[in-house]
């Protein structure tokens, strides 16, 4: 084979470990072994489909007031053919709100999880690789993040920065990177002494190259595990913040719906159709994240598996 022929055949196998492909393959392997993880994946798939299709499928605009034929506001209606899950006290369609709430939940969950993974992995890599005073400073920062009561701090920051979902995402990223950072650092500390990392240095690889080309691919599976757990946490936190009234009032999220229902005494009126669906959705989304995370964990650390 000549050099050019060899080069032509390159794309199949020259890429450094195709991390994303690996991640998908691993996810598939997890789903095949673990029925809970499969359920989690299906839940996310359904939520994603609903979120994407919400504008097309939702029967009403979630913020529009609906009227009865007689011209009155269709407030506090029980489920019917025209309003599958009834209406709110302002006559808004609950079913449409649940559908649009899915968008917020997924955006918040995934963007925050992505932020957590990126920030945590970066901090963990740098701290573990350089050790010394860099490590000390970064890990004391992690200690501070651990010491802060999470929800109150999140509420204070959102209140300070202004109620918007992007601020919520930012705050969660700033507070939740600590777990990922700690775990990745520990892993890097052990990888750093492996011969192949020393080999990279003997070959002349710079510190940045050693960290990102040689060490990072070996910790990414762990990052994905913590990312999948962070999705659930982020959705739950966003719901809590909105339920407590610090969310963006112009965005319909599941937490906002619960707050709305709570404030208008829906529970006293036994209007289950109003507050049960968003609560159920929050529970499903959070559970799905943990199911997938647990599946990953069993694949990555088979020894933790129950005997």
């Amino acid at each position, binding site marked *: 084979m000549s*050099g050019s022929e*060899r*080069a032509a055949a390159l794309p199949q196998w020259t890429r450094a470990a195709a991390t994303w492909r690996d991640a998908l393959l691993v996810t598939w392997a997890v789903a095949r072994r673990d029925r809970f993880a499969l359920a989690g994946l299906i839940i996310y798939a359904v939520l994603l489909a609903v979120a994407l299709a919400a504008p097309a499928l939702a029967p009403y605009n979630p913020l529009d007031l609906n009227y009865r034929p007689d011209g009155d506001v269709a407030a506090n209606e029980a489920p019917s053919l025209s309003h599958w899950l009834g209406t709110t006290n302002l006559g808004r369609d609950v079913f449409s709100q649940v559908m649009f709430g899915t968008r917020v939940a997924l955006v918040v969950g995934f963007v925050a999880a992505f932020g957590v993974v990126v920030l945590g992995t970066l901090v963990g890599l740098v701290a573990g690789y350089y050790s010394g005073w860099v490590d000390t400073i970064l890990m004391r920062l992690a200690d501070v993040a651990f010491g802060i009561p999470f929800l109150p701090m999140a509420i204070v920051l959102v209140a300070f920065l202004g109620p918007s979902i992007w601020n919520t995402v930012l705050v969660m990223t700033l507070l939740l990177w600590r777990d990922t950072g700690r775990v990745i650092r520990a892993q890097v500390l052990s990888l750093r002494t492996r011969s*192949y990392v020393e*080999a990279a240095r003997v070959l*002349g690889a710079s510190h940045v190259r050693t960290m990102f080309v040689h060490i990072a691919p070996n910790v990414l599976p762990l990052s994905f595990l913590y990312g999948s757990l962070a999705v659930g946490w982020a959705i739950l936190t966003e719901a809590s913040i909105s339920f407590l009234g610090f969310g963006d009032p112009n965005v319909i999220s599941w937490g906002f719906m619960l707050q709305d229902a709570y404030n208008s005494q829906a529970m006293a009126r036994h209007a289950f159709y109003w507050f049960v669906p968003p609560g159920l959705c929050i529970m499903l989304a959070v559970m799905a994240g943990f199911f997938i995370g647990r599946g990953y964990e069993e694949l990555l650390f088979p020894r933790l598996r129950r005997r």
Partner: protein
Amino acid sequence: MSQLLEVTDLRKEYPLQSGMLSAVMGARRVVHAVNGVSFALEEGGSLGLAGESGCGKTTTAKLILRLLRPSGGSIRFAGRDVAGLEGLDLLAYRRQVQFVFQNPYEALNPRFTILRSLLEPLIIHDIGRSLTERVERVAMALDRVHLTPVETFFPKYPHQLSGGQLQRVVIARALLVDPLLLVADEPVSMLDVSIRAGVLNLMRDLSRERKLTTIYISHDLALIRYMCSVAAVMYLGTICEIGPTAEVIEHPRHPYTQALVSAVPDPDPAQPRRPVEIADTVPTPFQLPVGCPFADRCPQVMEVCRRVRPALLPEAAGVHVACHLYPAGTREAH
């Protein structure tokens, strides 16, 4: 001939963190991993560093490779001090000095294919104008270490190869940058007996073909005899005897070398052996005696050995010994 590598009074100390007790006592204890090592290696030469575990031979190698910085002394490579190299100078040095690791199962990134691992040195040092040319170089390197047909090895991951094949890949990677000096730390100790010879022969042939300067680190004197023209025996961070390999092994002068040589088992049961007795104590590199580091275990210890540390001085037949049994006055008479 010119000296490629000159090591002078090399030292490496580690602070010992031994928990609560020493923290309470307030004493700062220090491990002397390498404690005044000196040798010179000419271009094309091969040096064997022999010694038991903990004698500082691997630390010496890591100092030469600039994986560690010395606490004292100097390493000069082609006339330049290695300790002060930074940036592009360090990169240039890294291209000239390469390493073969003890554990081939850990020396390659598990997430890289063999081709990707072997492209890495070419990318780092920007060798080869195009990807095509780089792949061609990798193919030639694999061919040189007899991993053929090379294409079948390109897409493999490390866990798919055997220990012997992995060590060949590691050697190929080291040779891709055309180094002047190759350091090998126990290159076959993790490999099965039947395939060791293949790796040793390969390294011997390659270093002869390319006039490569080599340093082999091993606890196995037989391996050093097979691979090296000069042998240095280390004990507790110092060289106690250095000289032409055959001379050091056949006529060991230092009592420690004598004990070491006599203790090596021989595969031929008919070979007679007269072992030298030395005490089995726990040698600790942190409370070094004032005198000779071997004094506690030496069967021929004298009063002077506990007071004065012997210097590494020339004896007969090109051998240097650090032992009071060979005082300067009697050297010629030997």
